[in-house]
C-alpha cells in the first residue's frame, strides 16, 4: 500500500487514484460534477506560470484546480 498524499503533492505526469475527498458538501459536489469520485484516476499535466492552479487530466478532459482545493483530495500514486 502506497502512502496517502494530497493531490497537490503529486508530481507532474504521475498517475494518482482518488481515495477520499475531504471537504464540505458544496465543494464535494463541484468535484463530483467534474467526474472526481473515489477510484478516479487523475494525472497532473501542467502548471500555471505562477505555480497554481494546476491542470489535471480527468476522464479525458483537462480541469484546472487551485492548490487549496487540490489539497483536499486524498490520493495514492499508482
Amino acid at each position, binding site marked *: 500500500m502506497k502512502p496517502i498524499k494530497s493531490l497537490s503533492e503529486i508530481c507532474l505526469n504521475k498517475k494518482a487514484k482518488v481515495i477520499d475527498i475531504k471537504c464540505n458538501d458544496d465543494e464535494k459536489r*463541484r468535484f463530483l460534477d467534474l467526474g472526481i*469520485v473515489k477510484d478516479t484516476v487523475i494525472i497532473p499535466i501542467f502548471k500555471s*506560470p*505562477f505555480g497554481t492552479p494546476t*491542470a489535471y487530466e480527468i476522464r479525458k478532459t483537462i480541469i*484546472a484546480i487551485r492548490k*487549496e482545493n487540490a489539497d483536499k483530495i486524498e490520493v495514492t500514486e499508482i
Partner: protein
Amino acid sequence: MGLTSKSTGTNLLDDNNFIKNSDYEFIVGLAGNPNVGKSTVFNALTGMHQHTGNWPGKTVGNAIGEYKYKDKKFLLVDIPGTYSLMSNSEEEEIAKDYICSGNSNVTVVVVDATSLERNLNLVFQIMNITKNVIVCVNLLDEAKKKGIHINFELLSELLGVPVVGITARKTRTLSRLTQTIDNVCSGKIISNPKHIKYSDNDDSNEIVAKILKKSEEICKKVCTYDKQNYNERDRKIDKILTSKFLGIPIMIAFLGIIFWLTIEGANYPSKLLSSMFSSIQVQLYKFFNWINAPDFVTGIFVDGMYQTLAWVISVMLPPMAIFFPLFTFLEDLGYLPRIAFNLDNCFKKCCASGKQALSMCMGFGCNAAGVVGCRIINSTREKLIAILTNAFVPCNGRFPLLITISTIFVGGLGIGFGASILSTITVLLVILLGIFMTFFISKILSKTVLKGFPSSFTLELPPYRRPQIGKILVRSIFDRALFVLGRAISVAAPTGIVIWLLANIGIHDISLLEYIANFFDPFAKLMGFDGYILTAFILGIPANEIVLPILLMCYLKSNTLVDLEDTMQIGTILVQNGWTFLTAVNVMIFTLLHFPCATTLLTIKKETNSKKWTFLAFIIPTICGVVLCMCTTLAYNVVKLFL
C-alpha cells in the same frame, strides 16, 4: 462566433421570455455540458446567430429559436451548459428548472465525442427526470482527428435512448438529428431509458458515484482509441502558452499584435470613408443652398447631424471592425480559458475568482456583455467584484478613441513603421493599467464592502479548435457594422443636433455650450484638460463611441467646413484647441477610467438588482479616473516648476 448584436448592447436587457405562442407543434430542449457545441447546433438548426466561442459558460440564459422540418414547426430552447443537475450555480438552476418543468416534448442532450465518459453523467441525470431523451454526440470531426471511434448502436442499446452522431459545424450532418427529433416527437421511436439503480437512502453524492462508474463501463465498451497520445499536440501548445517564463509575455504579445493590426489596418478604410463623407457633405451644402434652406436648417442637419454621424462611422467603425474578428479568433481557438488559467493566482491574491479573467476578456468586446458573462462565477461575492470592475477594460466603443489619440500624440513622434509600434505600446500600457486597476480595486473591494475568502475554483480547459476564419470575418464585420451603424444613427444623430443647437444658441454672444464648458472648466483644469472634454464624456454616456465626435463638434463650433482627410487632421484641431501631451495622456486615462455607458449601467442594475451596486459601479471607476488624472497633472506641474 464571438459577440453578435444579439449578445451585446441593449439587447441584453430583453428577457428571454418563453414564447407563449402555441403555434409550435413540438418544443425541443437542448441540454449538455458546457462547451460541447450546443449553441452551434442551435445556430445551425435555427439559422440564428447566438454567441458561440470555445470556452465553458458562454450561454448564460435560455435562448429560443425555431426551425421547420417536414412542414412542422419546432421550437428550440438552448439551455445553458451544465455539468450536473444537482449543484447550485445560477446557470445550473436555469437548466434544471427548464428540464424539470416538462415544457419540452423532447430533450436533446449534446455530448462531446472526445470526452464521452464525463458527459454521460448528465445524460443519466436527465434520463432520470424525463423519458424522451435523444443523445446527440457532437464534435465527431475532432474525435476522428484524435482517432476516437464510438459505436453508436451499442451506445444506444446500453442507454436505451436514440443516439445520433453529428458535427455541428457542418450543417448537413444535422439532418439525422432533425429526423430523429421528429421521430421521437411523433412517437415513431419510443425510448426506454435504462436508469441507474440506487436505493432510496443513497444521497446525491452516492448516486453520482454510481452514475460515473456506469459511464466508465459503458465507455470501455463503446469507445476505441487508435492512438494513446491523441492529445499530444494540445499538450505541447499548452506547455508553451502556460509556461513559467513565456506564459505571461505571450499573452501580452497576443494583445499587442491585435492592437497593432487594428491600428495599422484601420488607417486606410478610415481615410477612404472620411473623403467619401466629405464629398457627400459638399453635395449636401449645394442641395440645401439650392432649395434655399435657412442657415439654421443647414446647420442642424449638415453641420450637426450629418457631421457627427460621419465622424462616428469614419473614425470609430474601422478599428472596431478589425479588432472584433481578431478577438473572436482567439476566443474560438480556445485561448481565453488559458488566460484565466495563467492569471488565476493574481485573482486569488485579490480574493477573487479566476473566471473573472473570462468576463474581463468579454469586456473588451462590450462591457455590458462582460457584466452578463459574470454569471459563470459561482460565488455571489466574487461575481459582484467582477461586475464592479468590468468597466476597467476598455470596450470596443472606447478604444478607437485610445487608438486615435495615441496615433496622434505618441505615434506622431515616430516615423513610418515606428509610429504604429509606438502607438501600439501606448495602447498596451493603457490596457495594462486597466488590468492593474482591476486587480487593485478587486483587492480593495474584498477587504472592504465585499469581505470574504476565495471560493473553490475549477475551470475546464477545452481542446484547441481551429476557428472558421471565413465565417468569423463575414459575421463579425457584417454584424458589427450594422450594429454600430444602428447605434450611430439612434444616438449620434440626435446628439449631433443637440450639440449644434447648444453651440449656436446663446445669451449675450456666449453660446450655451460655452456656458456648460466654462462651468466644468475649473474642475477639468485640475484634471489636466478642459471643460469641453468633460462635457463630451458626460454627453457620451448613452454610447462611448460618440465622445470624440462630440468633442470635435464642440471645437468646430465656428461652423467652418473642415475636410478631415485623416487622423492627423483631427490632431491639428486638437492642438489648435490647446491640447498638449499631458492632455492626451489624461484623456487616455479618463477614457479607461470613467463611468460605464448607460447600457452597461442598466445591465448592472438588472444583474445585481440593486441601486447600491449600480451606483458603486458608476462611482468607483470615475473616482479612480479623476484622482489619477489629478495626480499626473500635479506631477507634471511640479516637475515643470523645478525644470
